[in-house]
């Protein structure tokens, strides 16, 4: 029992530190920036954790990822936290009851969550204010950011699979 708890703490610490590291990297000026666009790293990690660990752990990591994004982002505090937490809980439940944990599904989940988030921002921050040329925001910033994020998603999914598999082999955690 003690060994199990110890292993569980170790696993959560690895996820937590990875989340923090990815957040630092995603907000570092100039790092992984292509034509002014940067990928979102914390969301694919939270989605992958939700797929592997279920709704409770997934929801909590979704919440943590959302709080981090709210801290550095321009949107009102709470939007990312609410969305990512809710999405990760749903993803955890979907994988438990209806879908499989696979690389393709991690891409679909990440794409859908990010798409909802970007459309939400696009509507409330641009469409509602009637800015000119707002399609440029969608085409030149939001869509490339989603594509870049999807490019790194398999790598983060693979990482979470490895961590999950390692602790499963070690103590069925």
């Amino acid at each position, binding site marked *: 029992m003690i060994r199990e708890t110890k292993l569980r703490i170790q696993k959560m610490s690895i996820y937590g530190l990875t989340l923090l590291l990815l957040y630092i990297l*995603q*907000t570092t000026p100039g790092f992984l920036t292509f034509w002014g666009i940067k990928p979102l790293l914390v969301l694919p990690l939270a989605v992958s954790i939700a797929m592997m660990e279920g709704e409770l752990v997934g929801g909590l990591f979704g919440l943590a990822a959302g709080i981090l994004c709210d*801290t550095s982002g321009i*949107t*009102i505090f709470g939007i990312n936290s*609410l969305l990512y937490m809710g999405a990760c809980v749903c993803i955890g439940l979907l994988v438990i009851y209806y879908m499989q944990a696979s690389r393709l599904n991690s891409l679909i989940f990440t794409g859908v969550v990010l798409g909802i988030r970007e459309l939400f921002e696009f509507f409330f921050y641009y469409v509602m204010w009637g800015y*000119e040329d707002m399609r440029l925001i969608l085409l030149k910033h939001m869509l490339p950011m989603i594509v870049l994020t999807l490019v790194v998603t398999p790598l983060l999914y693979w990482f979470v699979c490895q961590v999950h598999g390692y602790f499963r082999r070690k103590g069925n955690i």
Partner: protein
Amino acid sequence: MSEFFQSKIFKLFVAIAVILFALLLRASMVQGTSTVATNVVSFLTVPLQKVTASISGSVGSFFDRYLNADEVYEENQQLKEQIRVLTENQVELEQYRWENESLKKFMGLKEEHPDHEYVMASVVSRDPNSRFSSFAIDKGSLDGVEYLDPVITDDGLVGRVSEVGLTFSKVTTILDPALHVGCYNARTRDMGTLTGNIEAAEQGMCAMELVSRDSTAAKDDIIVTAGSTGLFPKDLVIGRVVSIATESDGKSMTALVQPAADIEKVTNVLVITSFRGQGSSMDALDSGEDGAEDEGNVSEAAEASDNAGE
């Protein structure tokens, strides 16, 4: 699935969601101030971000020498040509002044504006979800930074503080359409409102709107802040006119302005925490319909009253 909705886990997430929604409502009502959660997270992450930002900056500038050699050469040629034109034609006094000011470092700025109080800050993060080159700096309310404080470099205006935490602040740049700055042309004295424009922002530029149709403004004119609203000091260099065109309604003209500061790559900034005339129109701002973000209405009103006075 149905057992999940009767479980304690479901109730826990509902409770968290309610708390988050309350925080969201509070954040939307209290503009410019960070929440407790943001302050706690920033307290942990800003020191790490400082380290990674400085490492990234060093590595980036090392590779930039080689990766951007063509760009640097081209820029060098352009500068040479500019120097030749300046020498031969003796351009206007304002242009010389702007060139001088662009060479002045932070101490020079202090001499130039004795009424200004500055806080030096470093850019520590640029979020993937941030638009218009907005960024976060490593100074907050503990360092004397306040909501709406202007942010500059030694080259010119960058933007203003849009949110303040204890140890960090978020900066909205002049490329953002939500930001409006009262400004005038240093040569022709034409007033206007500088604001971001999505299309122009793609090229790192912004627009000076509501320029009189009779204006003789031309390319390379220097645009400076009007200082009429109390939100920005007077005569801060904003940038240089790139082109000017008549609006579709034919009533006014819009000038494309290249900011003097390299907003997309800026790494160190100065926050002006105090200046003469600061907040003189804040009452007008507070009573504005659209809140603090819509400075444009205020600046126009202030400019109108200025013009009426003249």
